[in-house]
């Protein structure tokens, strides 16, 4: 028996094999019914013994690997019967979500605790991937009332608590104090964007920097920070589930942003990370997460100032979105693992640990009773982020609850801010896309 594998056959097989190799292979779903959202029924953990070992999947938000290790070491000292394995499950929220979702599909190797960002937790809820924490809150006596109200409320749906805040942030206005001084400007963030528009030409003329202000990188959550502009002008991505990104107010806000780049010429758009551009002296100011604060203070060779986000012509305050990540527990693991995970989750968010995490990263302390005295003595800028928390606003549903909406918003922003695309037409197209996502991917899974 012989096989004649000539060049023709070889190339044919190579073609077929190469195509097939491009395809994914993972566990499949059942086709018996509709996709259920997570069960809101409270889980009873009485009589359950915690598992001896759990995995903690994290992307180390704010370069937090060392502080996470330190808190886990303290946990091991207090709870020697539970071993926590720190797993780097991705470099950012998207990568960790990718790993978590594919593990759900493969139905194996799920963690006990997972870091979930503001735009991902709701998807896990609608897919039935996470449990409500209310049973654990009761069993372990987790002090939910001691968490910052607005932060803990972000994870409440259907009268249940689906995650607890962890590496939580807001955007901050970062400015180069030296540039501001040289331009004769006051040592503070502008109160409104209109005020900054008056400052910007002076800044650009005197600083020698490329830009007076740089918009955050479009791949770095543009939909998050642009809410500040939209809200200041009285617009938004959406009002509840009604997409209104093409409203006159939203269009006006983004037209102003486009003009700041093309007409007035004092602003630019970051290509990778606005905080890095700012620290490198390319721009006199930017908006970036509080999670970037420690990194900026460490790398910048000038005096760094931080302030609240500027308001707009219609709304001057309360135009800052919250963001960042929380901690959740998967539904696809045993009650024993869930209980051990709950024990760890409670420990990670204890006041002294959230203070330690905040000191190491710049993220906000999530507990009201966290003693921040020594942290603020060392890094007083964190106080600005803490004070701004009172002036934050819950993010638009379209950005945090629609799968892929953040990417679509970033693409629309790219068209407006880097290609000088027509703002109204771009926003109209975005509205149609977002409505399509809502109708297809979200609406069928919501309770009527």
């Amino acid at each position: 028996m012989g096989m004649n594998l000539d060049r023709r056959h070889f190339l044919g097989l190579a073609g077929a094999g190469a195509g097939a190799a491009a395809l994914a292979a993972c566990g499949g779903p059942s086709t018996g019914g509709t996709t259920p959202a997570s069960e809101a029924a409270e889980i009873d953990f009485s009589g359950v013994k915690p598992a001896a070992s759990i995995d903690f999947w994290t992307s180390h938000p704010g370069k937090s690997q060392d502080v996470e290790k330190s808190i886990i070491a303290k946990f091991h000292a207090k709870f020697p019967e539970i071993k926590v394995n720190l797993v780097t499950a991705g470099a950012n929220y998207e990568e960790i979500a990718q790993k978590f979702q594919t593990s759900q599909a493969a139905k194996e190797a799920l963690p006990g605790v997972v870091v979930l960002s503001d735009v991902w937790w709701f998807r896990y809820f609608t897919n039935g991937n996470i449990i409500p924490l209310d049973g654990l809150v009761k069993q372990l006596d987790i002090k939910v009332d001691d968490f910052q109200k607005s932060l803990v409320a972000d994870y409440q749906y259907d009268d249940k608590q689906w995650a607890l805040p962890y590496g939580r942030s807001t955007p901050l206005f970062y400015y180069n104090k030296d540039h501001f001084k040289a331009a004769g400007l006051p040592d503070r963030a502008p109160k409104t964007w209109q005020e900054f528009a008056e400052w910007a030409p002076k800044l650009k003329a005197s600083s020698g920097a490329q830009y007076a202000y740089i918009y955050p990188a479009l791949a770095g959550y543009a939909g998050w920070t642009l809410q500040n502009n939209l809200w200041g002008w009285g617009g938004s991505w959406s009002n509840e589930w009604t997409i209104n990104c093409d409203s006159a107010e939203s269009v006006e806000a983004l037209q102003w942003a486009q003009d700041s780049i093309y007409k007035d010429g004092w602003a630019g758009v970051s290509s990778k990370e606005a905080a890095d551009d700012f620290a490198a002296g390319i721009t006199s100011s930017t908006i970036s997460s509080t999670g970037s604060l420690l990194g900026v203070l460490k790398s910048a060779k000038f005096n760094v100032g931080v302030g609240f986000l500027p308001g707009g012509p219609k709304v001057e305050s309360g135009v800052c979105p919250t963001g960042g990540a929380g901690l959740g527990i998967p539904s696809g693991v045993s009650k024993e693992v869930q209980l051990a995970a709950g024990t760890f989750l409670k420990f990670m968010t204890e006041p002294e640990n959230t203070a330690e995490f905040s000191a190491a990263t710049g993220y906000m302390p999530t507990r009201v009773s966290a003693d921040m005295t020594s942290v603020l003595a060392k890094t007083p800028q964190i106080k600005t982020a803490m004070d701004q928390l009172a002036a934050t606003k819950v993010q638009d549903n379209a950005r945090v609850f629609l799968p892929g909406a953040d990417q679509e918003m970033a693409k629309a922003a790219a068209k407006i801010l880097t290609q000088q695309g027509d703002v109204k037409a771009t926003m109209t197209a975005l509205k149609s896309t977002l409505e399509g996502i809502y109708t297809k991917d979200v609406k069928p899974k919501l309770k009527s």
Partner: protein
Amino acid sequence: MTRQLTDRPPAVVEAVPAPRRRPKWSSRTRRDFFVFLALALPNLVLIGVFTYLPLINNIYYSTLDWTLGSASATVVGLDNYVTFFTSADAAKVLGTTAVFTLVTVGGSMVLGLLIALALNSKVRGTTFARSAVFAPYVLSGVGVGLVWLFIFDPGYGVLAWVLRGLGQQSPQWINDPQLSLVMVIIVYVWKNLGYCAVVYLAGLQSLPQDVMEAASLDGANGFRRFLSMSVPLLSPTTFFLLITTMLSSLQAFDLIRIMTPLGNGTSTLIYEAYLQAFGAFNRAGYSASISVVLFAILLIITVLQLRFVERKVHYS
């Protein structure tokens, strides 16, 4: 033989011939077959499990409305294909795929051939030059992508620094969708032209020298010899490169993922399939249908190339 039969007595001729038995395998043939199985079976099993089983699974998933991470799905038949081909994205994705593939294949092959011609000349330093040209091909795509991102960065990249020195502003390579595609194409061609150059160099060095010398004696100059002798004689190499580089371009992923994570302007079929399932949308069924479209395109291209292009190839 016929003559002998007809010469035989009728009784013998009319006798019913014994039924032909299937030849039994000799012990040696059987042994060879088992050796073949022992050697080939592990590979066949691996290919079956890791290549063709996923392919079949993927075709099945393409008929589902399935959100990645969800335990259940709904059978929707060909709806995912209809959605893809009737969406505005289809033309954009297919167009991007076509531009990326044609330019990277054409660029790698043409530049690879030119470099091979230069490396084929007998001057000092060709060994070093050959290594330098081939090195990017064996480097990690992720590392290459990260380094080139720094080079292209409009804020503090080397390219921006050079342009500023010339009094020019750097283009928005990363944010502008059209320039993003140009940027990724440049890096992809740079990374892969070494492969084409080395394969072409091997082809050039195996050309029959007597024929080339005869052409030279007949008065053909270098360019004429290249056009009329080298290019036709290199056609098997060109054909091989055409198929392998085209398949590889259609599956290019690492550079696109690292340099343009949003796929804004650079979303080829394979990257769109990734984005739809794993990027943000979690539409696993829809993504599977895009993968099947890619598979069909790869298959059609390969068959067409084998049927029509190979006819024009001179193997000797």
